[in-house]
């Protein structure tokens, strides 16, 4: 039994909006009765994707827009995070663990997205921007209930 839903957010590319997007995801996912663990995994993946847009896509320019589309169909969650920034020349390299173009960044963003979501796809074109599509099957409520006992 699932109430399918979709929401599209356009947020200004300021760092404060990373936590705002996380909070909104929490609200959007509230009806699906997720455990805190699952919710945390989704929030981390989302946080990484949105931070990437701001740090890398827009190189910290604050007058740009990040678009986040969240969709649930039959408890299948799809999150799409888009920027229209500089794009990624070599997606494979960008997704390698510990690869980072910037010092003090651990190169873990894509690793966390891959670890915490079931599936991730990256579409990018230099100069045009990057879209990350992440998918995760939300655990059925029955399973969670039986864990509670």
């Amino acid at each position, binding site marked *: 039994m699932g109430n399918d839903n979709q929401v599209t957010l356009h947020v200004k590319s300021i*760092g*404060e909006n*990373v*936590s705002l997007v*996380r909070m909104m995801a929490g609200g959007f996912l*509230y009806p699906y*009765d*997720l*455990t*805190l*663990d699952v*919710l*945390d995994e989704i*929030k*981390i993946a989302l*946080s*990484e994707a949105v*931070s990437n847009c*701001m*740090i890398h896509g827009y190189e910290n320019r604050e007058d740009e827009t990040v678009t986040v589309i969240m969709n649930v169909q039959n408890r299948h969650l799809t999150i799409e995070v888009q920027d229209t920034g500089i794009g990624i020349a070599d997606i494979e390299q960008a997704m390698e663990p510990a690869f980072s173009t910037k010092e*003090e*960044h*651990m190169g*873990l*963003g894509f690793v*966390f997205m891959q*670890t915490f979501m079931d599936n991730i796809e990256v579409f990018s074109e230099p100069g045009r921007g990057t879209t990350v599509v992440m998918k995760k099957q939300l655990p059925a409520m029955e399973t*969670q209930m039986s*864990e*509670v*006992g």
Partner: protein
Amino acid sequence: MEKDTLTLYPQGDLDLVSSQNVRDALDMILYSHGGLKQLIVNLGDVTFIDSSGLGMLIGCYKTMHGRQGRMMICDAADNVYRVLELSGMKKLMPVLRQETQKSVRGEGYGKR
């Protein structure tokens, strides 16, 4: 406490913005306390961490390492500890999780 030890207590979510704030605060303290030899970051009040938070912790580690100092992380809640573990942070410094008593409380009832 010994004068050469500093304990930081960040609160809330450690992400892009808040991590930078912690980093700035630490830099200011380090600037005026040249003798600081040990940094303890108590994550007891941290509810969320992503790779920006981890990057900040690594940055602190590098800074302390650069001045022949030491660093440790303590009191991490289960969800935060899991991310620290995944990142391989434990290879660099001691990482202690929150007392089990705290983390066991509410297990299974943690749904919202």
